[in-house]
């Protein structure tokens, strides 16, 4: 990065470094808020600010008590349990339905493809408050409001567009003659599906599933309306916590979630690379 062609003029050099500095500041703006919550979550006092002891790196200024609170408080533990259960089943449901739909959409014979696609993607576009309100009234009437199943169904609906999009993307350039080739070599449709199609779309399915998972795991508007206290998830608990009484426990939770998202990010990146390798797409 540091090597510049020797023929550049001074303004060009200034521009080169100035531009990188500007970009550095923007990246700083992106990352700094996430970084800042981490030390604050080890605060010894119940405030959102760096105390003198913390700045002096005095161990007395730091404490693990907010983590302890998170791991022992029943409200938070219930929230973790609910978040995992709901996100898991919502992901399972949206991945299954979304993958099937993407396979259908990619068939050359599929009629009104764009229209169907835009309908299937709409849960991603409609403002969440509208979806949440509609689901609240309707699910209440059919007895799904305030149940785990209701929240799972709602989250699955919100997650499907991501699966449809990612799986469709892996199917772009999918050679349909592979299926015919498999068939002509005597493979049954089931065999073809598992031996030919699945390996090819698997990276897309998994990254779609991750998107669906994070959609549910991070979702708060719909769960506030469709769920009740018994379905409280981590974001639900954070939302009511921030509105009522901000304790650094929320920052401890935030730190844990940042670490979770780093783990997810790495997974997705590895999958993407594997997927591109499998399909023989070269990095440009």
């Amino acid at each position: 990065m540091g090597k510049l062609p020797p023929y550049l003029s001074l303004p060009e050099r200034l521009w080169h470094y100035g531009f990188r500095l500007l970009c550095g500041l923007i990246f700083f703006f992106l990352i700094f808020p996430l970084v800042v919550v981490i030390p604050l979550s080890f605060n010894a006092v119940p405030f959102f600010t760096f105390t003198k002891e913390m700045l002096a790196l005095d161990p007395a200024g730091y404490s693990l008590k907010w983590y302890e609170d998170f791991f022992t408080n029943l409200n938070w533990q219930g929230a973790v349990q609910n978040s995992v259960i709901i996100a898991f089943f919502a992901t399972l449901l949206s991945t299954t339905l979304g993958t099937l739909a993407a396979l259908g959409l990619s068939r050359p014979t599929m009629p009104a493809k764009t229209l169907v696609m835009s309908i299937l993607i709409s849960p991603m576009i409609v403002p969440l408050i509208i979806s949440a309100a509609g689901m609240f009234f309707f699910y209440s009437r059919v007895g799904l409001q305030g149940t785990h199943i209701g929240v799972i169904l709602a989250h699955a609906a919100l997650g499907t567009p991501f699966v449809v999009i990612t799986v469709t993307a892996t199917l772009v350039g999918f050679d349909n003659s592979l299926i015919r080739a498999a068939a002509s070599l005597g493979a049954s449709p089931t065999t073809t599906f598992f031996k030919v199609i699945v390996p090819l779309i698997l990276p897309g399915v998994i990254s779609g599933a991750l998107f669906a998972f994070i959609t549910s795991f991070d979702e708060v508007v719909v769960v506030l309306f469709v769920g009740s206290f018994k379905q409280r998830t981590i974001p639900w608990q954070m939302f009511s916590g921030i509105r009522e009484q901000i304790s650094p426990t929320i920052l401890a939770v935030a730190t844990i979630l940042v670490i979770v998202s780093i783990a997810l990010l790495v997974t997705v990146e590895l999958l993407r690379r594997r997927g591109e390798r499998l399909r023989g797409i070269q990095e440009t």
Partner: protein
Amino acid sequence: MKLTRNLAVAVIGAASFAVAGSAAAETELVVVSWGGAYSASQQNAYHAPYMKANPGIKIINDDSAPEAVAKLRAMNEVGKVTWDLVDAVASDAMRLCDEGLALPIDADKDLAPAPDGTPASKDFGDLLVSECFIPQIVYSTTFGYRTDKVKSKPTSVCDVFDLKKIPGKRSLEKKPINNFEWALLCDGVAPDKIYDVMGSDGGVDRALKKLGTIKDQVIWWTKGAQTPQLLADGEVVMGSTYNGRLFSLIEEEKQPVAMLWDWQVFDLDGWIIPKGTKNLEAVKKFVRYATDTQRLADQAKFISYGPARKSSAPMVSKHAKLGIDMKPHMPTDPNNAKNTLLFNYEFWADNQDDFTERFEAWLAKK
């Protein structure tokens, strides 16, 4: 598609497992309360000892009381009530009772008599303001201020409207209740004429106009724990909240905050049993236990609210942890109650919808 079928079976099986798992063998009672120090005092005085004595009962706290009227109406409209017991102030209890959202109780049958045998209806007396209302505490809404941040010490509730004497942000509840009373009082209305003026033509406009003089300096709160937090964080220099919250902030958390006892509004808080609860028997048993003389007196060990039973008053003693005498911190203590506003429940039960509508419209304007 064998795969689909297998997956479908797995999903349905797993989902029903998840639901079964959440509804365990024990009875769960969802008790709605106000959060923060208040929920904690109930947890200590009622829920924890009750659960210890009754292992089959699990009491879950839901801190949604500020939105309880709206949520109960919504639950009723759509036909699914998920709460078993709801904390409500007296005027809300009256409204919910009128609307058929709360179950009427028979004080002498459903509530325990005093230790000396006085029936509950006598022991609670006038505080049984509605046939659905189960009184717990007498509280008052008053102001706390940061002793280190105010320019001069506030001496009257009207200092809230005096930006010269006390510059800085103040927090008020996002409701017309109490704010209208104070606004009219500080606009020169005699204390005993406040509700007459408020109910007359132009009364609401007058109150809003007075509030308008400080509007851009107000942070509006919706939950009782917010003002203590805002005061502790230094986001506001003064703010209204319930006296028990301020007690916790000052005495337990040792924050540089003091309390203003001037024209605080007296009110009652209690429970209602929502119509449609699935656990009526269990919840009635719990209520009978939690509102007996000893239990109501116990709550005052944790937060400075006056118990609603006459027979509990002499049993109010010392704070459970700090060991300080609770009596001088009670809103009913003569030193604190020199001038208090008597809250008109019926007036607010009738007018709350109208006034809230106008208050909200006023709030939404710049």
